[in-house]
């Protein structure tokens, strides 16, 4: 009973600090713009929020803000989904099979330090400036951490657990499905988490190069027309959507890895 009350307290405390720190940031922003020369290059937070609000009904370019964000999200989901269905199996193969590791790991280690954005020129030459090149850039940006974490998850299965499963009569294929896979789920999720934020960053970069809609496009056109309000509105929407995506994934993880969370 006592423990539960304490837990609620910490939760409430966190919420209070969360609000306080955001309000503080906005306040400093407001005061700086109001009383210093910063107002020559920065709009006040009210202007930005007013712009964000009005863009729910008024078009930026050819569409309203929610549709811009949906356009970016669609690209992220296609690219990220590709990264998941390629990356998770590759990582697991690397973690489980010595041959798989010997074949895939050298290539992976060579490609790994190349940032996703360095693929942009090749992507444009291969796929043109349409949607496919964006999917490709998002996919290569997200895939590295997905492969890496799936690999370490699958390769760090406790040998005592594998031994215990063997003693209980599990065959190799059963050990894979009933021991290796579930035991790597938390690690795989860590990779999915990082991969998702990488792909959200990549979509913005991809849209800044060539696009006619999307959150990245809002920022670039804002720059071209010298509209700081629009730039900041784009940036804030990106931040909020990124936060939302990460929280959604965390909720999913909590559901799938309940066994891994102490005291829940």
């Amino acid at each position: 009973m006592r423990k539960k009350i304490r837990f609620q307290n910490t939760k409430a405390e966190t919420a209070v600090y969360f609000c306080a720190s955001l309000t503080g940031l906005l306040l400093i922003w407001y005061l700086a713009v109001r009383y210093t020369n910063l107002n020559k290059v920065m709009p006040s937070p009210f202007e930005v929020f007013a712009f964000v609000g009005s863009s729910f009904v008024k078009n930026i370019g050819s569409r309203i803000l929610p549709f811009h964000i949906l356009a970016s999200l669609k690209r992220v989901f296609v690219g990220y989904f590709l990264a998941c269905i390629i990356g998770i199996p590759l990582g697991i193969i690397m973690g489980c099979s010595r041959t798989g590791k010997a074949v895939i790991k050298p290539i992976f280690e060579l490609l790994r330090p190349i940032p996703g954005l360095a693929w942009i020129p090749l992507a444009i030459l291969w796929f043109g400036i349409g949607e496919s090149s964006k999917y490709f850039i998002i996919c290569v940006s997200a895939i590295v951490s997905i492969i890496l974490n799936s690999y370490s998850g699958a390769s760090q299965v406790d040998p005592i657990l594998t031994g215990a499963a063997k003693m209980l009569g599990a065959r190799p294929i059963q050990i894979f499905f009933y021991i290796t896979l579930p035991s790597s789920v938390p690690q795989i999720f860590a990779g999915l988490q990082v991969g998702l934020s990488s792909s959200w960053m990549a979509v913005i970069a991809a849209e800044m190069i060539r696009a006619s809609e999307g959150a990245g496009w809002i920022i670039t056109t804002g720059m071209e027309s010298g509209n700081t309000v629009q730039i900041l509105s784009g940036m804030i929407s990106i931040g909020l959507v990124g936060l939302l995506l990460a929280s959604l994934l965390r909720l999913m993880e909590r559901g799938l890895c309940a066994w891994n969370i102490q005291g829940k």
Partner: protein
Amino acid sequence: MEHSGKIKKDAMILCDHVSKSFVNGNETAEVLKDITLSVEENEFVVILGPGQCGKTTLVNILAGLERASGGEVTVNGKKVTDPEPERGVVYQKTALFPWLTVEGNVGFGPKMAGVPKKERKERTKHYIELVGLSGFEKSYPIKLSGGMRQRVGIARAYCNNPSVLLMDEPFGHLDAQTRYLMQEEVERIWSQDKRTVIFVTNNIEEAVYLADRIVLLSNCPTTVRNEFKIDLQRPRDNMSSEFLRLREEIGRHVEMTR
């Protein structure tokens, strides 16, 4: 009471001149040296040995998880080469599957063997009851205490219906109070559902409390030092004069193995 390790060739488990060395670079570490022992069906044999003397290696060889460097182990006349569900293991660090509930852990073996769901459920329920964990079927291991986890480990081994149970210092990590309780529990469970048990420990009192026969091992390289038959009435009273006398006598032999 003390008798030299005479082997019966028709015993259920036969550990025949087993040795094990680990090679590390140029160094060879001899861990097990010429271990010979036999275990009868439904006998409770406690292997008593000091500290880090390769007891776990011996269990792993008996289980089939490791190969002996020399000699062989046979169970019911069949040579042990690989892990097989006829031998169940209860581990020192429980080795429960953390992503499965108590029910899932206990029912793991039958599930692997393809036992139909209904029968599996009944068997799981029976063994969870036997170890006294009814009401915790849906709990994850992370929420259980050390003693409860060991109960799950025991139920999991039993539920797979092995003819041999290997227990590798199962209570090594428990506090003294829980340890006494678990010793009584193991005695009760074994009396209700007899199996051939090889129980490894470094605790003399635990050995005298549980064993039909104690096999005393020497320190590294490990070999069989002595055997003691314990003929006390079960359940045993660890304060009775006979118990204390045996404990002291075996204690003297343990001293000599150091």
